């Protein structure tokens, strides 16, 4: 099992996790999620991301460890941008590899759902020349909670 956790100011490229996760036939499945900056019908020009250096990496590491204890994974890559990001650019990448697709699909969704509600990032949107803090959504809390409620009744795959 290998893991890559990174917070960076520069751009993200989909080929990076793809190449990094290749393991000469050990894994049969790679699932990657890319989160991109929506412009909300041309309203949002850019985002600015702030984080809590040190805690961010540690929380992401814990989330990946939890995913590894629930699913048999061969690799997990989490990269998140901070700083100013333009509409249309990638803001986050979560990619996992596993022998079979079900584990890879579920683990990727799990990592992303927990990242949204646990990892200390905050974003502002640039709208009409003003930076406005984005409010957290209750639906994100519910998505994360749904994984944790069934934690006891499920065997890892």
């Amino acid at each position, binding site marked *: 099992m290998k893991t890559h956790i990174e917070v960076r100011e520069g751009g993200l490229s989909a080929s990076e996790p793809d190449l990094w996760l290749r393991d000469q036939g050990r894994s049969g499945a790679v699932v990657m999620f890319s989160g991109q900056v929506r412009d909300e019908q041309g309203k949002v020009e850019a985002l600015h991301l702030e984080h809590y250096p040190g805690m961010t990496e*540690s929380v992401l590491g814990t989330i990946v460890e939890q995913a590894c204890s629930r699913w048999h994974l061969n690799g997990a890559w989490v990269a998140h941008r901070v700083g100013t990001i333009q509409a249309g650019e990638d*803001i986050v990448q979560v990619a996992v590899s596993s022998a079979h697709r079900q584990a890879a699909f579920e683990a990727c969704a799990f990592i992303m759902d927990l*990242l949204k509600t646990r990892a200390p990032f905050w974003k502002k949107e640039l709208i009409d020349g003003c930076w406005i803090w984005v409010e957290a959504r209750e639906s994100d809390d519910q998505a994360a909670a749904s994984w944790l409620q069934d934690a006891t009744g499920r065997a890892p795959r």
Partner: protein
Amino acid sequence: MMVQVRFFAALRERAGRDAIQIDLPEGVSTVAQLVDWLAETDVALAQALEATPRRMVAINEVLGNEDSVVEAGDVVALFPPVTGG
């Protein structure tokens, strides 16, 4: 006891500072008590906290809650709900 309190995002902007060192009196031993004490002793922080009613807390970089115990030397971070991803 001395603790460091850090603020992030909208709460940091409203507080006008990113960190403070404080000497907590006896009897202030949980996050909820710490927040109440900050609001009682610092008008600007009281306003910033009131303007940010939904908050999360981390103690020494681990998520906690308002009942978490605060000890000497701890770094307590207060911030609005996270919005990454």
